[in-house]
């Protein structure tokens, strides 16, 4: 397809988006679904404010922390579980239970016990990432090349270097996909904690705009979250491709 027709499609997308947006706005009433000409100037107003960038930074930082701690927890528990065959069957039900549970229901418990601070959000995010990722780590360790396992047994490699130089590197291809998906989950969880519990970041800004019935602002924040979310998804996708280039990701 030529470059000019690609631009034509992009232009169609833009025009269509604007048309659908305005249609929704007329259908729902401009008060609750503001027109584009109300949202775009507001988006600009928001973007020149220092507090907005601060909130965005806080959200991203908390997401990164949650992803970091979650990855560490998942790796430690995942490797420990996967190395013992009995470990996996014993913990399977437990891990699946925590994975299937909508993690945000823990939020009221966390708020009641430790308050609604940045730590609450990070703790919840860490929990989400850990149980999302642990399955990938277990699967990765399980798929270690059997001949390599035999080889390290023959040279009687000590346990810690076996983990460090054999099992962890062979999980990376699978864990990479898990980390990419977890990054989006961590971001979503930090935002959700802000919306539900007022923990610092973009989520609580959205909550504030909503409760003061400032709907153009609500839509501005939602657009910002969409942009940030897709950036995170794409960036982690690129990182994964670069580091795990030999494996086609799912």
């Amino acid at each position: 397809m030529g470059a000019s027709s690609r631009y034509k499609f992009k232009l169609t997308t833009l025009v269509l988006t604007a048309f659908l947006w305005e249609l929704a706005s007329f259908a729902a009433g401009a008060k609750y679904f503001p027109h584009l000409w109300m949202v775009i100037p507001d988006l600009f107003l928001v973007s020149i404010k220092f507090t907005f960038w601060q909130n965005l930074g806080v959200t991203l930082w908390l997401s990164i922390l949650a992803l970091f701690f979650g990855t560490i927890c998942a790796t430690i528990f995942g490797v420990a579980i996967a190395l013992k065959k009995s470990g996996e069957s014993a913990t399977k039900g437990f891990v699946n239970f925590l994975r299937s549970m909508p993690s945000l229901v823990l939020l009221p418990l966390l708020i009641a016990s430790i308050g609604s601070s940045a730590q609450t959000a990070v703790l919840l995010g860490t929990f989400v990432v850990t149980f999302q990722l642990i399955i990938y780590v277990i699967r990765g360790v399980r798929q270690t090349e059997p001949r390599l396992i035999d080889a390290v047994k023959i040279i009687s490699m000590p346990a810690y270097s076996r983990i460090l130089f054999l099992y962890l590197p062979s999980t990376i291809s699978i864990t990479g996909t898990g980390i990419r998906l977890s990054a989006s989950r961590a971001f979503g969880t930090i935002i959700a904690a802000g919306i539900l519990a007022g923990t610092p970041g973009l989520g609580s800004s959205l909550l504030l705009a909503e409760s003061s019935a400032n709907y153009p602002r609500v839509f501005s924040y939602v657009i910002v979250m969409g942009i940030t979310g897709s950036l995170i998804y794409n960036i982690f996708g690129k990182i994964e491709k670069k580091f795990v280039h030999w494996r086609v990701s799912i």
Partner: protein
Amino acid sequence: MSRFVKQVLWRAWFPLALVVIWQLVLRQSTNPFFPPPSKILSSTRDVINVDWIKTSFASSMLTLSSGYLIGCALGISLGAMLGISEKLQLIFLPIINFIRSIPSVAKVPVVMALMGIGTATRISAISIAVLFPVLLSTLRAVAATESTYLDAARIMGYGRIRELILVRLPAATGEILAGLHAAVQVAILVMVVSEMLGSGIGIGAFIIHSQATFMIADMWVGILILGVLGITLNVLFQMTESRIAPWYFDSKIQS
């Protein structure tokens, strides 16, 4: 039979041990937020009665199932439509990808702003959250039908619609089911969030209410019920998946 019992015991010892340790450690504890399992059990008996099931539980299940079904139906039909037309994909995929990138919980306040806080709002919020993952997995699967199948359809003289219904969709069953499975978790999440954000009805509202009135053991009951709900739906899905599309799921490592 004894092998089955052994397997069950082998799987159950770890969770059971956790519960026993939890009970032993927190039996004498005065920490109000982490009650021992015995206390949660006695609250369970108080909480779950006919009234509660009729109001909170039934309401949650109703919104969850109707929202999920509407979202899936829309997702599959739109995904199938987009899957067979590259031009439509070029136009609509950027919009769909963008909306999908917005965290599902952040869409709930927008839906609430538009529709208030009734049952219809909760159902719509769940449908919207379910719609996009289902749409994308359907689209991807329908667009990637094996070319030999399509050649066969062409030889049979099928038109586009017939090809979609008789060839592309059946071949995509596995991936569509996987998308439906992934959407269950999102649906439960959005259900809880929309109930927590001021509806006053449902399991999510029950949890928030218990927290606000310091009935911490009741709150734990709500949390555990949602966990049980999640894992039940998960297991049900796994069972149906390998029954309906064994060629797709049996080759995958089940997690």
